[in-house]
């Protein structure tokens, strides 16, 4: 039910601020503060993990420019760039959103966390697990070039018939 909402919003061009090749920036329809901007992929990728690397790259580069614009155009004293990646992180809509939120001192927004203390062993365990998982990182997905047009199957078959026909000639 909610799948088409964001796509429809993008299509409506409401609050459209910028159009990139794979991304768009729009005024948030549910702002945490005035000037809250959404940077989204045009395609309905749901989370970072199933968004191609080159789209993720564009998302953050665009978000960075939007940050600059919020400083310049709205006199923001700060900006937060935030991704709620997955339900555990508070994601509500099934469409990846990079939030760019303008901040002012004492604006009442609380985008902080309670720092915790972990013991050495717990830290070491986590360190090893993550380090291990990050070992393979290196090559990033690039945009694929458009494939060359292949002749249609029907056409090939017709040619075959012609050849076979020729062969029958005594």
């Amino acid at each position, binding site marked *: 039910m909610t799948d088409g909402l964001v796509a429809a919003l993008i299509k409506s061009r409401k609050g459209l601020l910028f159009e990139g090749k794979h991304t768009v920036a729009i005024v948030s329809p549910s702002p945490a503060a005035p000037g809250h901007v959404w940077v989204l992929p045009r395609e309905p990728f749901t989370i970072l993990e199933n968004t191609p690397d080159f789209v993720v790259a564009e998302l953050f580069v665009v978000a960075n420019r939007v940050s600059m614009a919020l400083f310049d155009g709205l006199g923001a004293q700060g900006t*937060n760039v935030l991704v709620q990646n997955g339900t555990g992180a508070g994601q509500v809509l099934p469409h990846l959103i990079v939030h760019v939120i303008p901040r002012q001192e004492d604006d009442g927004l609380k985008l902080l966390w309670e720092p915790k203390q972990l013991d050495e062993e717990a830290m070491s365990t986590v360190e090893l697990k993550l380090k291990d998982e990050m070992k393979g990182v290196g090559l990033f997905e690039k945009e694929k070039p458009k494939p060359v047009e292949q002749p249609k199957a029907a056409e090939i078959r017709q040619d075959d018939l012609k050849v076979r026909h020729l062969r029958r000639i005594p």
Partner: protein
Amino acid sequence: MALTEEDIRKMSPEQLRDLQKQQCIFCHIISKRVQSRIIYEDDKVTAVLDINPANPGHVLLMPKEHYSVSPQIPDDLMAHLAMIAKQMSQAMLRALGAQGTTVIAANGVAAGQRASHFMMHIIPRRDGDKAGMALPPGEVTEHQVMELQRVLAPVVAKAFGKEAVVVERPDDAAKEAPEKDGPAKQEPQAAGQRPAPQQSAPAHPSPSGVPAPSPSPPSSPSPAKRAAPPDEDKDDQDKDGQDSDDKPEANLDDITSLLLGGKR
């Protein structure tokens, strides 16, 4: 060895930058003069575990080069940071069984920035972990959206080094919003000693540096954008743009109510 105000005032930008690096604990962590738990590094970035994590596995991802805030960071480095952040998030889901990840960066003290070295926080999350960073749902009228669009679109275009191509209704051109005064413009304040030494010009690297496919210019059929929903002419006046009788495909209200109805 204490530096006086006088000494600092006399320093050149380069000297100031060096001073900032000397005093930056994260630069020391990156250069390994200070010990830390490094999860990943390459020639451009370093990722370490936060010693006071929001959740176990909380990672700080930083450019090796000292930048105070992300507007100073060139596009190719920003792209690299983003792609590594994605990998890091994926690693958390796989290796730590996280049910989600929060990726957050703060530019400026007002945004909660506490270190003078730019970093992206990548935090493993679990349903109901109460680690915070929930976005309060807000309301905005269609009229307000259009106003923000009118003000911001040109600035965003300029940030990409392009001329603003947002075409407005003829009456809007007459009542241009007053330009923001110079003093009203706030410079990003980094936590710690001094405001970021690098300003304006270097902060807007040219789009040609972007390795990812460069963003296309704002769509040329801007008049078409205005033509599409003809009913927009209705909220020409100062009244709210809440046209209940015309329902264009995407109703802002649907998304707003969906978000307001969410329990987070």
